[in-house]
């Protein structure tokens, strides 16, 4: 820490006071943006991590979670923003001076050193404050190092392995050495980059429990990166769900599962039925033409919302007419402790989990209790772009020119273009559309698919469509101009609206 304080004394002191008052966060990530070769990996991301917690960064591969970890470790420098550890800004501090240690994905044990020397590597370099020494610090003695290394090896259950060659160890043992090597340095924060990814399932389960126990014993903050949602829910005090470089939700595991903040989180965490509905009034939701009681309130009257219903929350029983929906079982799969069934109703194919088996073709009824219905705000309800009127009934936006009524506007006027989700049409052949795009996401919403695409200029479009589109498909975009509305662009009004 002495090193840290020496670098920017004035600034440091000020920030320490500030954060001490504000929170007990050990790590504070503020407005971090990271751009690699023109691709934005993290977008203005802010996050506080509480002291002593087991925090998991969870997301699909390429979402930016590992980049965030590497920024904290110091292997990358942010394009914008600052990271504070205990109130000290660290982005200009090299990794070897940061009070964090990393357990690498592929362990990165030094192959030319044995287990003992691997673990001792950090200790041999460590400077400890010592008033008696002229330099103000001293190094650990051999005896001290041996004691600490053996203690760390004992903690990971590899007491007698010190003399062993690291290459002669199994994957699980190498993993333990990597953990010992990191914790022996007594970091304030331990960073773990998908450390269990290379282990087989049984080993992984064991290490999960051991890591959790180690976290309790050591009492330091763990930041754990994984793409495995089950691992994240099992181990963490707090889960940070990241997608496309943006935090989707930060919450305790139970809350992430029970109350996902949006359709992405609901889809990513566990199995779920994601539907579209309308909030009729407080405590009443309407979907598929039925009004059902629910436990949510505080939405606007008739606001369009997303609905998540977990498959294990749906009550399924024999015969028609006993619940809210009648349907026919189209498939049944035994999953070890329960059966997973697809039930086709007039409106939707529900995924249902139950202890009881219903055979294919059986007529069943489904009942959904109020507290099983989780309601989320729609992320976006309309596509909005900045455009320009180029002629009569001609507007240019999102990299293409479209026919839109332009009464009252003149060529050259800057306008805001509102494109409803159902005004966009996708075409199989890129040539058939006005602009080309790639599909990034396709979510089934009950009666339709909500598809997200981005154009070559990196502009997003949300589309409601009856067809499913595959990820990474190349498509063309057409727009039904009669459904599009435009509005005069007023920079000042726009700026206010953002606030």
């Amino acid at each position, binding site marked *: 820490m002495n090193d840290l304080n020496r670098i920017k004394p004035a600034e440091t002191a000020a920030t320490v006071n500030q954060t001490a008052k504000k929170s007990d966060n050990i790590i504070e990530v503020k407005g971090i943006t990271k751009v690699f070769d023109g691709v934005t990996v993290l977008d203005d991301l802010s996050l506080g991590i509480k002291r002593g917690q087991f925090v998991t960064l969870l997301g699909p591969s390429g979402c930016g979670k590992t980049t965030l970890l590497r920024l904290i*470790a*110091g*292997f990358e420098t942010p394009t914008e923003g600052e990271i504070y550890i205990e109130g000290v800004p660290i982005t200009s501090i*090299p*990794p*070897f*001076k940061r009070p*964090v*240690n*990393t357990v*690498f*994905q*592929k*362990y*990165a*044990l*030094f*192959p*030319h050193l044995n287990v003992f020397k691997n673990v001792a*590597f*950090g200790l041999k*370099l*460590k400077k400890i404050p010592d008033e008696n020494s002229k330099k103000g610090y001293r190094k650990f003695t051999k005896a001290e190092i041996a004691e600490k290394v053996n203690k760390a090896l004992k903690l990971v259950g590899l007491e007698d392995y010190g003399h062993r*060659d*690291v*290459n*002669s*160890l*199994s*994957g699980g043992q*190498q993993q333990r050495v990597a953990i010992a*090597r*990191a914790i022996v*340095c007594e970091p304030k924060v331990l960073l773990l980059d998908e450390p269990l990814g*290379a*282990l087989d399932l049984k080993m992984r389960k064991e290490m999960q429990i051991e890591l959790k126990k180690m976290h309790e014993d050591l009492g330091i903050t763990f930041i754990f990166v994984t793409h495995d949602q089950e691992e994240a829910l099992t181990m963490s005090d707090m889960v940070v769900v990241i997608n496309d470089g943006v935090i989707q939700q930060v919450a305790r595991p139970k809350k992430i599962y029970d109350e996902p903040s949006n359709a992405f989180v609901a889809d990513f965490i566990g199995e779920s039925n994601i539907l579209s509905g309308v909030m009729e009034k407080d405590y009443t939701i309407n979907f598929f033409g039925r009004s059902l009681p629910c436990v949510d309130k505080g939405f606007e009257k008739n606001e369009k919302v997303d609905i998540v219903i977990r498959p294990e929350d749906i009550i399924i029983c024999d015969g028609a007419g006993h619940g809210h929906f009648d349907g026919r079982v189209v498939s049944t799969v035994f999953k070890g402790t329960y059966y997973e069934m697809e039930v086709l109703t007039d409106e939707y194919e529900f995924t249902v989990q139950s202890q009881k088996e219903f055979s294919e073709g059986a007529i069943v009824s489904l009942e959904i209790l109020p507290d099983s219905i989780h309601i989320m705000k729609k992320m976006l309800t309309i596509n909005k772009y900045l455009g320009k009127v180029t002629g009569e009934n001609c507007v240019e936006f999102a990299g293409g020119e479209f026919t839109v009524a332009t009464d009252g506007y003149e060529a050259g006027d800057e306008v805001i273009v509102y494109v409803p989700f159902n005004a966009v049409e996708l075409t199989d052949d890129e040539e058939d559309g006005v602009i080309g795009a790639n599909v990034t996401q396709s979510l089934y919403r009950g009666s339709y698919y909500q598809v997200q695409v981005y154009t070559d200029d990196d502009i997003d479009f949300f589309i409601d469509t009856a067809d499913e589109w595959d990820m990474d498909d190349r498509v063309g975009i057409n727009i039904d101009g009669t459904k599009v509305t435009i509005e005069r662009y007023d920079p000042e009004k726009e700026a206010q609206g953002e606030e």
Partner: protein
Amino acid sequence: MKSRLKAKVFKPTAFSFPYLAVTLVFVIFPLILVLFYAFRGEDGSFTVDNFALVFTEVENLRQLGATIGIAALSTAICLIIAYPVAYVLASSPFNKMVILSLLFIIPMWINFMLRIFALQSLLSMLGMQKSYEAAVIGMVYDFFPYMLLPIYTVLVNMDKSYVEASRDLGANSVVTFLKVTLPLSVPGVISGISMMFMPIFSSYAITKMMGDANTTVIGAKIANLFENQNYGNYGYGSALSFVLLVIVIVVMLTGNFLSNRTMKAPKGGKVNE
């Protein structure tokens, strides 16, 4: 059907037969000839006199020492120059620039005699006559790519996470280089050394063309023994060649052994038990 197929498909080892044939004719057979001459006296009878002469003539030891000297000096100079170049070429901003690496390899595509002739005239243009120093320059120049490539290959293929782990554990760039990068690149250094030291040890063309009378190597003496018909002594030359060959093999095996000891490639997650 099955048996007919089987009859047509010959074993993969058959592909090595042409090479084996070439080796037999141009390597094994000459070696046998060398041994034959080495143990053959002037009158055609079996003798070990030639070997006795190799080990008793003081001149041989002196020349052997001089050869080791010039080979070691050239190799050391080459290593000192090549390592930093390999390090820079392998580091991230440059490792994608194939053209840079190619620049160092292109000389290998030109016949080495031509290169030596070119270097010779270049040096004399600069006013440097045939000398010991000129011979060393010639060797360094000639073998540079052979030293550079193995080191570069090891460095460019080295897992970046070792360096990151070292920095993560508190080592600055210098300590990381000395404690991680350098030890892990030893196999490349050893193979670079053996690819340079061995050929120089038995070469004589470069010293003959670039060096002066003081630049003696054992290879030159062997060449003399065979070339000079009056003085010509096939038996003695063969025995000397054979001893040289044994020395080279011993040194190479030692190098391989050392290299293997450090080369145990790490494989994450591999179960070895």
